[in-house]
């Protein structure tokens, strides 16, 4: 066996490797990673999002434009003309349909974005592009990957709901000053749905079209049965439970309280908030366990 190559120029090789020395030693690096690792991964996440920044921006701006315009000139006019509006302010004064439906649109947009970010990108991190395995071999821990991802999703949700809210204002779809808090509650609603989906996506080994099924049999029914386009009370009792377990319903109802002061007992508002937080935390914890198991094999 002859050597087919030789170190062409050992001196040059030495010079080339006498490169820049890092300002931290490995133990200092590890200490920083332990403390800030989630933020380092968030930084990566946001940089990668810039790669599809146009999609993000178009979705964030286009969705409210399309829906508000469509509903504003079409459905809302029709409904307002024909019904003694189903929803009413505490006093019984009817609410314009656009005001009634706006919190639902906002909550829906957040859930859509959260679904996008937590299905294929998560599976791809484990399977196709294997992007999780790079950082996993660095000082970061799998928990920090999960945290960084969740923070990234939260950033995108706030961007989405914040922009959406800015479109709602001039459309006259928000009546109360507390309406801006919908930006936060809708984002929470997005996490309440998105993080359990993240945990589920992280478990999938084989792509057999599961996400299409999630879309068809979970997301779509949620939209139909969550009191989005008409109040849940208009539904027969037998299907109302779908609304009660649906994060979309809780998120929408919260929005209605904040946006136009929909009358509702305080305990129910607390239930909305608590339920959304519970789902988000449960999804987050499950994702941490599943990521750790799968990346630590």
């Amino acid at each position, binding site marked *: *066996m002859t*050597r*087919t*190559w030789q*170190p*062409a120029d*050992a001196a040059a*090789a*030495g010079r*080339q*490797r*006498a*490169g*820049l*020395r*890092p*300002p*931290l030693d*490995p*133990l*200092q*690096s*590890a*200490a*920083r*990673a*332990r403390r*800030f*690792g989630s933020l*380092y*991964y968030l*930084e*990566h996440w946001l*940089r*990668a999002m810039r*790669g*599809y920044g146009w999609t993000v921006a178009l979705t964030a701006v286009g969705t409210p434009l399309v829906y508000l315009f469509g509903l504003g000139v079409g459905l809302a006019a029709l409904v307002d003309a024909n019904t003694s509006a189903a929803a009413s302010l505490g006093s019984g004064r009817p609410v314009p349909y656009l005001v009634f439906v706006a919190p639902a649109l906002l909550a829906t947009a957040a859930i859509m974005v959260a679904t996008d970010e937590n299905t294929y990108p998560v599976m791809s991190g484990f399977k196709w*592009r*294997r*992007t*999780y*395995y*790079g*950082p*996993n*071999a*660095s*000082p*970061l*821990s799998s928990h920090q990957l999960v945290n960084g991802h969740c923070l990234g999703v939260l950033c995108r949700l706030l961007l989405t709901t914040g922009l959406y809210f800015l479109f709602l204002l001039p459309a006259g779809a928000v009546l109360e000053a507390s309406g801006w808090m919908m930006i936060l509650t809708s984002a929470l609603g997005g996490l309440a749905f998105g993080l359990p989906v993240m945990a589920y996506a992280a478990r999938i080994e084989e792509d057999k079209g599961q996400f299409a099924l999630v879309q068809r049999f979970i997301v779509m029914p949620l939209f139909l049965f969550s009191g989005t386009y008409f109040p849940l009370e208009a539904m027969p009792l037998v299907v109302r439970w779908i609304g009660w377990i649906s994060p979309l319903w809780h998120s929408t109802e919260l929005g209605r309280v904040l946006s136009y002061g929909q009358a509702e007992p305080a305990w129910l508002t607390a239930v909305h908030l608590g339920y959304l937080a519970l789902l988000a935390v449960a999804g987050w914890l499950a994702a941490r366990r599943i990521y750790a198991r799968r*990346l*630590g*094999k």
Partner: protein
Amino acid sequence: MISARNLTKKFGDVAAVDGISFEVRAGESFGLLGPNGAGKSTTMRMIGGVSRRSSGELAIMGLDPDRYGPEVRAHLGVVPQQDNLDEELRVRDNLIVYGRYFGLPHSYLRPKADELLEFAQLTDKAKSKIDALSGGMKRRLTIARSLINEPRMLLLDEPTTGLDPQARHILWDRLFRLKESGVTLILTTHYMDEAEQLCDRLIVVDKGRIMAEGSPAALIREHSTREVLELRFGSERNASVAAELAGIGERQETLPDRVLIYADDGEAALEQVSARGLRPLTTLVRRSSLEDVFLRLTGRSLID
């Protein structure tokens, strides 16, 4: 730098790594040579502090990776078997983002990324998408990425598998430079020539166990003869002719496509074959390689 004792990893009932022990010293180039499924990658993931061992003892720089995962990983550069570059980022950004995981500041990472791109001969690709790189370029970028923290120890899992010969030689040259500069290399391969060229010392693994350990030259000396005579009689006849070759050389091995005769003097053995009136279709005298060592130890070829 590494010390493993009875290191074991089980997936369910199957032991992918079945009680292996070895030490790696600073500055050494240490290899794991074995066929697919031998447990090389599993071993590397345990050394890399990402996969928890089922039993045994393991210390990297004196640290137990199960307890000090981030500390262990901060010492290492890792080149996994499958590239996992982020295709949503440009070539240079892949390096910078990775460096951030080590808590390194941008003021260090920007010039460092340029230095490493130069080392990996990718300077003109700095702004390219990952998709636009060839397999060899991706591999070099992955190696560059693993060097972002200037690790003293580099783990390379099958660094050149799937590359064409030219790309392999470029890569070997880069690895050799790292070795020259004192970086400890731990690499797995199922190419015997790669092991012979890059490794000071290696273990031959099969089915999760160590079959032999030593320098390439010592392993060949110990488990094989100096030369090998390869004879091809045509696939139907190899087996039947083998009997007529009895007594030539120290040892013989009959494979489906050829007969191997192990002898210190291959030419002399060939003369003996001719003297018996046998006329092989082709003959070849060559030096013994690690392939022969593997065949001797396991009765199987490295690459099937």
